[in-house]
Each structure stands twice: as C-alpha cells, then as structure tokens.
C-alpha cells in the first residue's frame, strides 16, 4: 500500500494541454474516484499514474518516491481496464496468474495466490474455463483477480463497469467496495458515472477541462459544490437551476437576476396540497412524469425553464396539469450568475 501524490501534474499532446497542472494527495488505503465528463482528463491522469502516458510536467510520487521516469512495471501498481483486458487464449487460472508472470515466486506460491483470489472473487469453479465462456461480470472479476494476485501498492480502475448492464454494475460496485474494505489497498477509480463515484468513494475528485474543480467526500460535494458544474454533475437527476434574486432573508425567481437558485429534484416537493411554508415555491405545467415506485419524478415547465420535482405521495399528476412545488428553507443552493461560483445555502 502507498500514498500517491500529484504535484502540478501536466499532460500535453502537442499544443493541447489535456491535464493542466493538477495537485492531489491520496492517502494510504484511500479509495479516490475521479469523475467528470468525457475529455476532462481523468483517464489521462490515471494513465499517467500507471505509467502508460508520459508525464509532460510536474511530479508524481508513489509511496513518497518520484516515479515520473519509471516504467509501469517498476511502479508496483495494478490496473483494471474498461474492456477487462483478459486474454481470450488463456484460461481464467492463466489470466489471473498472468499478473504474477514476472514475479519471482515459486509455482506453489503462485498457485496459492491464484486459488485465494479465485475464492475471494467467487471464481473457484471457473478457473479452468476460457473467457469466452464467462459472463461480463465474471470477466470483470477475472480482471480484478489478475490485479489482486500481485498484491500491488495501488489499484487503478479505468471505468471498469461501463460495459456491464445496470443490475450487474450495481452488484459489482458493492463487490469492489467490499474488496477495498477487505484489502485496504490504495485505489484510484475513474468513472463518468456520478452514482459510482458517490457510492464507492472515500473522496471524489471532480475534473473538467483538465483541471480539478473540487475534491471532497461524497456528502461534501453534494452539500457544498464549488460551482454550478459540480452541483449539476453530482446528484441524479441533476440540480434544477433558475435565475433569481435575494428578497429579504430569502430568494425568489427573477428572470435576469444576479444569482442562480439551485434546488435538487429530491428537495423540491410537489404535494397535492402546498403547505405555503416553503423556502422556495414554483408553479408550472406538468410536461412528463416518471413513476419510480416509492416516488414520482415530475417534469415541469416553469416560465420556459424545465424543472424536475418529486412527488412522494401516492398520486401521479396528469400531464398538462398545473402543479406547485416547494423546497424547504435550507435546501437551496445559491450561485453567482456571472461566475457560477457557489455562494452558499439558503
């Protein structure tokens, strides 16, 4: 296990700067998730940590040693790829054992490690099968097994669940999280899925255009996003944003106002009867409804601004109906309309 430190890390492709001098310290045993839209530089950063991309500037330390010039094999890290990267011409046993190909261990020790990894990952019965005979989830487990047997300083995951269906993805999220709790190995995980980030991370790193926008625990990012981008990226469905202005101790909607009022769909509640005590109230026309079982998401048109609210009662509003929703005081997020920086909660 090891700490990972990124100091002013830069990656350039010709004149294009893909990663623009980022700083980050990852503690020993920490599970850090890089999240952001495509092209934000998260995978490039991970590949620089792995040694698969040359570092154009700055310093990368693994376990307090500068590793900028070291080959991937000299960094003692293991990586799990989006497409699993398990070899079709090898059995599961050979694939897992491949992580030990260059390890100076005797055969008995290698076999012991392979069996142990197979047991932890529930692959014992599949060790002599080829990858073609495995499901997507089993293949991903094999890839994780190959990383595990090496007992590396750090695990790197590059969007490992992207190719799985929703149910399997949810299952694998839990399995990877359990594995981390068991092994306590430093883990850097890249995803564009904010749900994965929220559910798995000790800390989340939000990236955009090659820079880190915010680093924090999932609840810190959810409760105090630094700007509009982070606020909308974290949480599903995305935060509603409307123009507004301050009025006394509260706020009100106002086209052309100097602030952006943000409210999460789960905090904007539509009731059959409005209490009138909300910190923020909007009325709009229902354009679509998404019944989810315990609650219903309602899409409203409020003065040409799309808003999503939640109905927690057992009624589903009709499309075209007028509906009033309210958010409790303290559930609003305020942003500067020109800089889009977070101003505080209201």
């Amino acid at each position, binding site marked *: 296990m090891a700490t990972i430190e990124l100091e002013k890390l830069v990656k350039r492709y010709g004149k294009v700067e893909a990663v623009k001098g980022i700083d980050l310290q990852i503690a020993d045993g920490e599970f850090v998730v890089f999240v952001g839209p495509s092209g934000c530089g998260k995978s490039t950063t991970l590949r620089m940590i792995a*040694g698969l991309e040359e570092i154009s500037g700055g310093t990368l330390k693994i376990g307090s040693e500068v590793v900028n010039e070291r080959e991937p094999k000299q960094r003692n890290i293991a990586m799990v790829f989006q497409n699993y990267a398990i070899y079709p*011409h090898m059995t599961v046993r050979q694939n897992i054992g491949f992580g030990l*190909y260059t390890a100076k261990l005797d055969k008995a020790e290698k076999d012991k490690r392979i069996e142990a990894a197979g047991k932890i990952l529930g692959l014992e019965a599949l060790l002599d099968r080829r990858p073609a005979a495995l499901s997507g989830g089993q293949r991903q487990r094999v890839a994780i097994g190959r990383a595990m047997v090496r007992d590396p300083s750090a695990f790197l995951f590059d969007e490992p669940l992207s190719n799985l269906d929703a149910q399997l993805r949810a299952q694998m999220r839990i399995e990877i999280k359990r594995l981390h709790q068991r092994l306590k190995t430093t883990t850097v995980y890249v995803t564009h899925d904010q749900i994965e980030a929220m559910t798995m991370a000790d800390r989340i790193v939000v990236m955009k255009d090659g820079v880190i926008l915010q680093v924090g625990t999932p609840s810190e990012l959810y409760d105090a996003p630094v700007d509009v981008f982070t606020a909308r990226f974290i949480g599903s469905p995305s935060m509603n944003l409307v123009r507004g202005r301050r009025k006394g101790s509260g706020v009100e909607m106002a086209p052309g106002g100097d602030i952006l009022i943000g409210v999460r769909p789960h905090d904007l509640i539509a009731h059959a009867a409005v209490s009138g005590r909300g910190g923020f109230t909007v009325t709009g026309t229902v354009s679509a409804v998404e019944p989810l079982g315990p609650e219903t998401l309602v899409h409203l048109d409020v003065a040409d601004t799309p808003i999503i609210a939640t109905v927690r009662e057992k009624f589903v509003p009709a499309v075209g109906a007028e509906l009033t929703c309210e958010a409790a005081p303290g559930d609003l997020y305020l942003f500067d309309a020109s800089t889009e920086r977070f101003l505080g909660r209201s």
Partner: protein
Amino acid sequence: MSEATRLSHGRIRPGLIVTWTVLFIGGLIMISPLAFMFSTSLKTADQIYDLRLIPAAPTLANYISVLADGRFMRWFFNSTLIAVLVTVSNCFFDSLVGYTLAKFEFRGRYFIFIAILSTLMIPTEMLVIPWYLMSSQLGWLDSYWGIMFPGMMTAFGTFLMKQFFETVPNDFIEAARVDGLNEFQIWWKVALPLVTPALSALAIFTFLGNWTAFFWPLIVTTSKELYTLPVGLSSFAVEQSIQWEMIMTGAAIATLPTLLVFLVLQRYIVRGVMLAGLKG
C-alpha cells in the same frame, strides 16, 4: 443441405443444378492433372502413352527407383529445410515488424510502412539481378543462405501481420505492460497468440511458396547437392531424356507434403485466403 436451397415442395432449384454442374466440371479439370500424375507414376515406361487413368499393370517400381536415388532424397531434404526455415523466419520477423508498425508510435513509422509496402510493386524478375549481384559479392552463391535470403522476410507478410496486430485492443498490450512484461514478452505471450489465424495463413502461404519455388533456386545454385525439388526434377527431366514416369513419380512425392499441408490445415487455408484477400 439447408431448406433454403430447396423449393417448399422438396424439388431442387434449377439454379442449384447449374451451380453443381459447373463446380463438378471445374473440380474435374482441377483434379485431372493430379490424377494423371499419380496414374503415370504407377505405370511402366511402355505404358505412359496409354491414357487410361487406372494403369493396366500398376507398379511401385518407379517409387522404389526414385527413392533409392540419393539425389532425390537430398533435394527433398533441401526443399524441406529451406521451406521450413524461411517459414519460421517469416513468421518471426514479419510479425515482429508488423507488431512494431501497428503498436508503436515513432517518427518515420508511416514512411517505413509505405517503403515496405512499395516493394510489393516491384516484380521478382526485376529483383533477381540485384539479388544475384549481392549474392555474388557476399559469397552467397550456391549456398542454402543464397537460396533463402531474399524470402526470409517479406513485405506481404509484414503488411498482413501489421493489419492484424492493429485489431488487437491496446488494453491487452497495456495490461501486460502494467503486469511487468517487457515489450518482447508482450509480443510473444499476448499479441502473437491473438493473431494466430493470420500467422497460420502466413505460414501456409510461405511454406507452399518456398516448396514450389523454382526460378531463384535455379539461378542461385549450381551444385546438384543444393538443388531444391522443383529444380532437381527439371534437371532430372533433361538428364533422363524425359522419362515421364520417373518425373511424375518425383512430382507425386514432391506433392505429398503440399497435399498434407492442405488436408491438415484446410480450415486455416480457407480462412487465410479470405483474410489475405488472395486467390490462393
């Protein structure tokens, strides 16, 4: 036969009859030289102008006589040695260069690839004189190396392997790199097994091409001990004042490895032809 090839009431479609007939005639045309070669090899000298396919008095005397001739066995050995070595060399070097061109970014990569590819446009006849001069200056005339060196690595093989290595996902290569393998180990343990169909096709075509090679071995060799089978058989014809039964026996024995390769590796050959876009 699939249901689609029949009419709903079970009668065979007329178009299919025409196809089968054409294929049958084509097959007969293709197989008849082979059949006559084996037939003639079983005939005595006075029977060879009797065109019956099954000889009146078949004999293995020709085979005994050819196999007893030390020169024939020497030529057989030469052809085997040369075809095997050139095939191994092509599989090794073509795939190594193809892999490098497909998976490594370096300055001049595209230029090198085009340069290699452009040699495909030069006919062998044009290359024979430079090859000969080179062999002469380097003392390679009338040697195994002299016969083999022009084919030890080919532009076609490099091109074929490059195209196939490009289909190998980079994740496989990078995963092996992270796992600690060096670049040669990655090529050998990871990339090469993933392009086995292309490698098989290259091996088959190279082996067959070198087994039947005539022009260059004829030019570069003067000692009968270094003749390959095709060259040896042609000289055999001149020496023996065209003893067809002996020539056909030699040709029949020479064909056996080729037939064996075809029978054993038929699946790969068909796939190889499709992969390489060749006519066979």
